[in-house]
């Protein structure tokens, strides 16, 4: 993002910058940080050592679900439109800073994979840093995440999904560490979108493994029918807590590191002392290195948990066959709920 820039500014901050001490300035630091980690409808291109901001206004658009639903509620002086909310039947699909970053990450991912990975069958041995690194990560996702969590039979089916999730998140995370770029994964909507993908794949895996009947039967938790009114909502809630956890974990982890870096550098301005830079800049650099590590770890965690959830869904299907075989005789109500399971 703008870490490198802020770092330079922090190191070479003029006395004029530091002497402008007021409560307004302190509040400004927090505002500055939150503004920069948040999404925006324009892409701001800051140039170092100057207060000049070049803002690129990104196109705004909306999908109306009924005619005239997307009439802008009001238009700002700079032409920024505010569309009505989704509840009013309007889906605001305006391009934002994070959307651009996500697309950039997607293009970089596809481009680097096509450019550096070894896909030539006549060359069985991978050569070069790119081919080896990609293959190492791909094999890691396949063997350590997919096969270990989902199983040898069903695992390979979900490898492309897990690979895409892993690399897509990794590229978005890493892109956020480049100056002038933004962390797309530090946005709740984007992590939610990714979690929804995992949710859909997980449910599809469950239905595929257990059948529609088995899948629905699983929602009852295998208890007596009298307990269903309690059990079904709990199980359904359980379905949604998993993607929710995925969403918040990735979002919070990616956001937190960036905010910490910003605050460490912001200390220079809050304490109005250039000497603070001697401490805060190395600390910020340390956190930056940690962030590099976290970028990989969070991509790994998201993928690992996705694989785990898919594995649980797949196993649910297999378990139900056994459970049904022994439990079906005992509980009539239970047995009826598994027409496809057997």
């Amino acid at each position, binding site marked *: 993002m703008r870490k490198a820039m802020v770092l330079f500014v922090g190191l070479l901050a003029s006395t004029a910058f530091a002497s402008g001490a007021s409560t307004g300035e302190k509040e400004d630091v927090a505002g500055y940080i939150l*503004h920069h980690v948040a999404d925006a409808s324009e892409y701001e291109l800051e140039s170092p050592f100057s207060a000049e901001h070049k803002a690129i206004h990104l196109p705004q658009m909306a999908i109306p679900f009924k005619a005239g639903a997307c009439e802008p509620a009001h238009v700002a002086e700079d032409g920024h439109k505010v569309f009505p909310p989704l509840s009013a039947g309007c889906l*605001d699909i305006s391009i934002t800073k994070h959307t651009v970053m996500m697309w950039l990450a997607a293009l970089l991912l*596809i481009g680097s*994979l096509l450019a550096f990975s*070894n*896909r030539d069958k006549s060359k069985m041995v991978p050569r070069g840093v790119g081919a080896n690194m990609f293959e190492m990560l791909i094999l890691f996702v396949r063997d350590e995440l997919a096969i270990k969590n989902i199983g040898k039979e069903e695992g390979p089916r979900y490898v492309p999904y897990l690979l895409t999730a892993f690399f897509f998140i990794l590229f978005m995370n890493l892109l956020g560490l480049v100056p002038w770029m933004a962390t797309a994964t*530090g946005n*709740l909507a984007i992590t939610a*979108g990714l979690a929804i993908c995992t949710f859909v794949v997980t449910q599809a895996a469950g239905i595929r493994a257990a059948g529609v009947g088995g899948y629905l039967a699983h929602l009852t938790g295998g208890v007596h029918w009298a307990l269903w009114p309690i059990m079904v909502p709990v199980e359904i809630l359980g379905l949604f807590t998993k993607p929710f956890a995925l969403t918040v974990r990735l979002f919070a982890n990616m956001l937190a590191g960036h905010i910490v870096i910003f605050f460490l550098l912001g200390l220079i301005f809050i304490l109005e002392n250039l000497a603070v830079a001697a401490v805060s800049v190395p600390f910020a650099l340390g956190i930056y290195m940690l962030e590099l590590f976290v970028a990989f770890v969070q991509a790994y965690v998201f993928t690992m948990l996705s694989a785990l959830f898919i594995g649980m869904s797949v196993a649910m299907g297999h378990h139900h066959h056994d459970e049904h075989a022994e439990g079906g005789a005992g509980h009539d109500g239970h047995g009826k709920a598994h027409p496809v399971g057997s």
Partner: protein
Amino acid sequence: MLLPNVLAASSFVEVRPGLIFWTIVTFVIVLIVLRKAAWGPILSLVEEREKQIASSIEAAKRERAEAEKLLADQKTAIAEARREAQEMLRRNQQEVEKFREELMAKSRKEAEEFKATAQREIEEQKAKAVAEVKAMAVDLAMEVAGKLINERMDEPKHRALAEQFVQSLPAKGATERRAS
């Protein structure tokens, strides 16, 4: 504090449905593109390589076992050949020994026979020589006696006398034949 106000006003906790939409669209497109262009080829390549490595190891193991078997066969064959050669040598030696003995016996027998023949020949020659010597002795004696008695005795008397004398000699030879 102002911070809570800033937090509340800030858009970073806001979840925009439009962005969720874009995320899912982008993700699905990336998934489809990469699945076709990258994951498929890379994974099949990796699988092929794994298979190749596994089969290579398997083949190497098999070949090694085969080579070991061949080596063992070779070793037993060599041992067998050596044993056979030894056997043959032993047999040959025996044969040679036997042949030599036979040859020796034969030559000894031949020598024996030759010796016997020679002895017989010698005996014969000796007897002949003795007879000749006797005849010559009779003639000589007659001549000597004739000269001595100056032919005072007549031929038949002398002859009988000489023969009588010769008869008295130890060996009886073919004097009659010599005398005639």
